């Protein structure tokens, strides 16, 4: 399952780091952060609960870039 989320982040490198952090979160199969469009596209693993996984994605992203937001 794929879902797209609106995000807010200030720098391009931070966006790349968010992408990395999201990819490493368990339950996420793949993630792409589009800095210019401020969107995060997440592909979830089979059977994962997007709501619960995204909570952890957000937490991990906050670790790499404090000044970011994912609008869930």
């Amino acid at each position, binding site marked *: 399952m794929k879902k797209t989320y609106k995000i807010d982040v200030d*720098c*391009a490198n931070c966006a*790349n780091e968010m992408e990395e952090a999201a990819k490493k979160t368990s339950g996420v199969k793949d993630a*792409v952060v589009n*800095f210019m469009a401020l969107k995060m596209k997440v592909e979830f693993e089979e059977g994962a609960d997007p709501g619960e996984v995204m909570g952890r994605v957000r937490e991990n992203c906050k670790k*790499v870039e404090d000044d970011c937001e994912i609008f869930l």
Partner: protein
Amino acid sequence: MSAKQKKNLIRIIVTSIIMIVLAFVEIEGKARFFCYLIPYLIIGYDILIKAFKGIKNLRAFDESLLMTIATLGAMALAIYEDGDYTEAVAVMLFYQIGEWFQSYAVGKSRKNISDLMDIRPDYANVETDEGIEKVDPDEVEVGTIILVQPGEKIPIDGVVTEGTSALNTSALTGESLPRDVKIGDEVLSGSININGVLKIRTTKEFDESTASKILDLVENASSLKSKSENFITKFARIYTPAVVFSALALAIIPSLATGDWSTWIYRALIFLVISCPCALVISIPLSFFAGLGGASREGILIKGSNYLETLSKVKTVVMDKTGTLTKGVFDVDAVHPENADEDQLLHWTAHVERYSTHPIAASLRAAYPHESDDCKVENVEEISGRGIKAIVNGDTVHVGNEKFMDEIGAAWHPCHRVGTTIHVAINGKYAGHVIIADVLKPHAKEAIDEMKKAGINRLVMLTGDSKEVAKKVSEVLGITEFYSELLPADKVEKLEEILNESDGKVAFVGDGINDAPVLSRADLGIAMGALGSDAAVEAADVVLMDDDPLKISKAVRLAKKCMRIVKQNIYFAIGVKFACLILGAIGVANMWLAIFADVGVMVLAILNSLRNLFAKV
């Protein structure tokens, strides 16, 4: 400007003013230190906080942390040495200016693109029993009658049921001439109604309508990342740690050898200032974003940054003939009467074809506009594989091919023109022939010339049409290579052969009818005039919104320009960074130069990227 940008701008201005004032005031000792600490904290407090969080999360290469170490280090050296705190504050100040400019430029270009793509309709006027009601276009069901006033956007694709008007389709097709519509015409959402009130019966849901699809496509295009973007991301991942470790080595090894700790620590701090990868990372996606935006303004939708990259490397263009180079509509090309005049010949022909549904019949009727006069057409007989026979005002008229003429004994002769020859006989006597041919698009020749100029070195035409027709078209256009009488499956095969032979990228251009398999097989599939044909939009990588073949060369040139800018930015940014590292290591550059270079490179790279948005090609 967002609230955050405003706040940061104020911080930048306040700090600058304090620094200028301090430059003229003589303070010594501890007081001096505290005086400079104020602007440092004003401009850098958020960086310090972030740095602290970076330590907490064990992120050694956090940008804020590196900036903090560099500036605090410079402060410490200043205390120890000469009391020149300006440098540390200036580094922080310029860093923030750079960040501010980046955020402003990115915000601006985001807004530019969304203005460019201002085709999202906000509402639809639906007729109800109580009058006209404004509703969310999402809620309009297929088959609803909607009303579009002059000046309003058409919200949903549909067919005109009442009224006539001119439509401005420039946001969709890049075509500036208005398009006239009348009852029965199909209209696309996103066009603007100019002068008449239109009633439209919707044929699609809002999500499936052209405007929504285009927006979706444009917004998602930059998610498909190009090789250049992946390269720079990987580079950034190695670059920062590499520079930080070199800084560490630079601080320790020469110092142990020379004993001159403060000089080498200072040089190491310069390295930390240069270690921030943001200047590198920002300009590449911004270039692509602006490139994709600039292209969509021209009516060229590119479905991803990666396709933009492929497009710039296209060396071979394979084209379908019908619908791409020719209009795909049969027109009367020539009338050669014998024992009659042109008008008479067309008159008879049109009458005989009065009731036929064959496409050729339609073009023959169109060539004689007064077909529905009061002439008597009787005993119409369609003979398959031959033609049509009818009695027109008492005369027996045969219209058909050579075989038909042979059978009735009319003395026909072949024509020198290429196309489909329709022979006519009156009462068994040959009366001449009419040539029907597919017409070239107005810009076809120019388009081929432009493609050659844009660096396409192999042009190939594929067609299902006869060899003669293909030969003539390719000669007129100046295409040296063509393959004719191909079935759709043969086209895929032929394309595969071409793919194997080519070293550059191969693009296939088609109108999307029957050629979806070929479109997806090519390195790059370009569908033209494909709005409305979902299969083609799905299969293609680049969608040309109108059917002008000139757009092909334009797309290639736009892509090349974008890639040039991307390369300039990559070389320039990396080059300047390395130059500063070397100058810093040998002691020529100080921290001022380092931060100047860093922020300057970023500003220039961003401005360079934005050239894509206003590309005149």
